[in-house]
């Protein structure tokens, strides 16, 4: 990281800062927009090496993001070619939902969970309204900005839907978030696939660990059926006609309500509706947003009050704070926050106890945070980790299985550079 020339300019306008992460098709680094003083994330896509010219994924992302302007969708600020590379400029996001879920020092109250899932669904509803399927919904594609706003990112797999005859590949989504119809190889699917994935994220917020962790496509279906019971033809009439349909041994539904004991009745009702087997009967995103869960108490937490991983202090070679005028809308962090680079992530130990059941005093606890405790036991409160000088966390295991499968992993996963 020290090698990065901190005053290097990209195409006259952006001052390059440290590298934030590296994906299969380019590097993401932080930069300062000298026109606005805004902190941005720039995704550099190598074009020269690609035999087919500009990457289709990148073009798709640019095209769709230009249409999708919404508070809950990442903003593409600029795109430009420079020295044979394509640069996409995004608003800078501090962290992502995966980091929040994995960080067991963060307590998520029912109202916090409601807020996160509401923002997720709002972003998704906007996509669907514009006839766009996201197709890669997972916690680490849900980025969280300096003001706590959650935004959908990574539209490299997204597609326009609407014409009924269009056939799509079913090889989308990270496996754990794949809807059953995709696992049965359907080529004609709709917004329901995003709803299923959103349901998985909802469950993950409640459980604080991925809900259905299949090790293969077959196993994924097994896990789904073990949780909800093998679907009967009356539940899902079209199932037997799906291309890769195979009969599964009957499994009765598990005691789901018990597993989600921490969820309110409304939350559990919405979750079950989002996890409906038949995509035609599955609740739509818009209907989900109108569910009484979102209007009943406790109301969703204000985004800027949501618990987030404590960001680490920025390293010395950065002068980001010099460029911090007062303009710059939603994206600009307040000076105090702007000096922080990346949130710490706590490595996820497979069987982390589900001890963070929340109660109504969460607010008080959060205030008392930072007072103590050893790092090894999960503390039911939000602690500023930077004071412990914590090591860069391990990559969560979530993607490793899907990486080869999806052949790529889009960046912005804010990996901590060594």
């Amino acid at each position: 990281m020290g090698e990065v020339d901190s005053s290097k300019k990209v195409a006259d306008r952006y001052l390059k800062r440290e590298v934030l992460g590296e994906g299969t098709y380019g590097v993401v680094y932080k930069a300062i927009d000298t026109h606005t003083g805004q902190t941005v994330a720039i995704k550099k896509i190598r074009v020269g090496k690609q035999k087919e010219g500009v990457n289709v994924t990148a073009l798709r992302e640019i095209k769709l993001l230009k249409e999708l302007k919404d508070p809950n969708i990442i903003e593409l600020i600029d795109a430009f070619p420079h020295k044979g590379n394509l640069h996409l400029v995004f608003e800078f996001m501090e962290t992502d939902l995966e980091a929040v879920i994995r960080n067991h020092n963060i307590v998520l109250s029912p109202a916090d969970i409601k807020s996160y899932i509401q923002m997720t669904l709002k972003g998704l509803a906007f996509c669907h309204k514009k006839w766009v399927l996201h197709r890669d919904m997972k916690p680490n594609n849900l980025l969280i900005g300096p003001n706590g706003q959650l935004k959908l990112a990574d539209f490299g797999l997204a597609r326009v839907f609407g014409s009924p005859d269009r056939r799509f590949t079913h090889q989308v989504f990270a496996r754990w978030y794949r809807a059953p119809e995709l696992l049965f190889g359907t080529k004609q699917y709709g917004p329901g696939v995003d709803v299923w994935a959103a349901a998985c994220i909802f469950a993950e917020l409640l459980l604080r660990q991925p809900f259905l962790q299949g090790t293969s496509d077959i196993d994924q279906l097994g896990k789904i059926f073990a949780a909800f019971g093998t679907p009967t033809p009356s539940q899902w009439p079209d199932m037997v006609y799906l291309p890769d349909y195979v009969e599964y041994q009957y499994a009765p539904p598990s005691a789901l309500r018990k597993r989600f004991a921490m969820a309110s009745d409304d939350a559990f009702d919405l979750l079950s509706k989002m996890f409906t087997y038949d995509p035609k009967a599955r609740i739509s995103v818009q209907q989900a947003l109108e569910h009484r869960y979102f209007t009943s108490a406790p109301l969703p937490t204000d985004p800027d009050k949501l618990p987030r991983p404590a960001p680490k202090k920025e390293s010395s070679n950065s002068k980001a704070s010099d460029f911090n005028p007062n303009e710059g809308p939603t994206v600009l962090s307040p000076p105090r926050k702007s000096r922080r680079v990346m949130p710490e992530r706590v490595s996820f130990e497979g069987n982390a106890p589900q001890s963070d059941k929340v109660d109504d005093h969460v607010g008080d606890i959060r205030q008392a945070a930072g007072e103590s405790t050893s790092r090894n036991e999960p503390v039911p409160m939000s602690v500023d980790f930077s004071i412990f000088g914590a090591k860069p966390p391990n990559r969560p295991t979530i993607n490793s299985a899907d990486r080869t499968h999806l052949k790529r992993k889009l960046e912005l996963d804010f990996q901590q550079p060594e």
Partner: protein
Amino acid sequence: MSRSRYFTRRELERNSPSRRDGITVGKESKLRSQYCSHIQQIGQKLRLPHLTIATAIMLCHRFYARQSHAKNCWHTVASSCILLASKVQDTPRSLSDVVSVVYCREIQDRITSLMMKHKINPHDVRERDEFCEKIVKILRREKKELILAAEMIVLKTIGFDLDVELPYKALVAALKRLTTDDKITGLLTEVAWSLVEEWLKTSLCLQYKPKYIAVGSVVVAARVLNVKLPAGDKWLEELGVLPERLDEVIRWMQSKLCKVKTREVISFVSFYEITTRPLEKG
């Protein structure tokens, strides 16, 4: 990045970049129809769907609204627009396919002339094949690089604005709003559709939103076919079209129609023996 997608007629006719290089309006429209038919031809050879071809044409229009023909050879630009549109519309064609379709004649000609120059005996099969293989490789690589360079320039010029709105959806909406009689609808659809196809090759789609082109085409088609349109502006309102702007579009269309008289429209119109009907404002 947020450059406007639409231009005024004045911008296009008087101040276009090509005009600054001394290319007249007439010459530019000629070049425009040349690249359009090139895109159509290549697109069909690549078996690209109609929407992809239309997208490529639109991208090319956008490019030449901001760049001069004098400095950018339309053949290369149009070819790279095909590649780009195929990616954007999720109907990808490989770069090699595009290159071999676009440049097959040129590469063949180059080989023939090079063979003469290097005194290759065309009857010595082995010598000839070895030579051809080598040359084809080099030529193709050259062309690929050319197209990729053009792709980047196109992207930069159009400010990465790849979202292309086409008038077909609006056309269907307008037709649905107007008629319920199947017989009339069929005829009206065909004439309006071929008109829309014609406008795609003109600068009209750089000046007005697709709905104006669609509704305008329906109105013109209805006049040609003597189909009665609803009175008043209420139906226009429902389609989200401002009457004054639409009048502008229709006037433009009719002026073009009198001059150009596109083959499709004429064949249609004459088929139904209504050629004698004056196309002036009715």
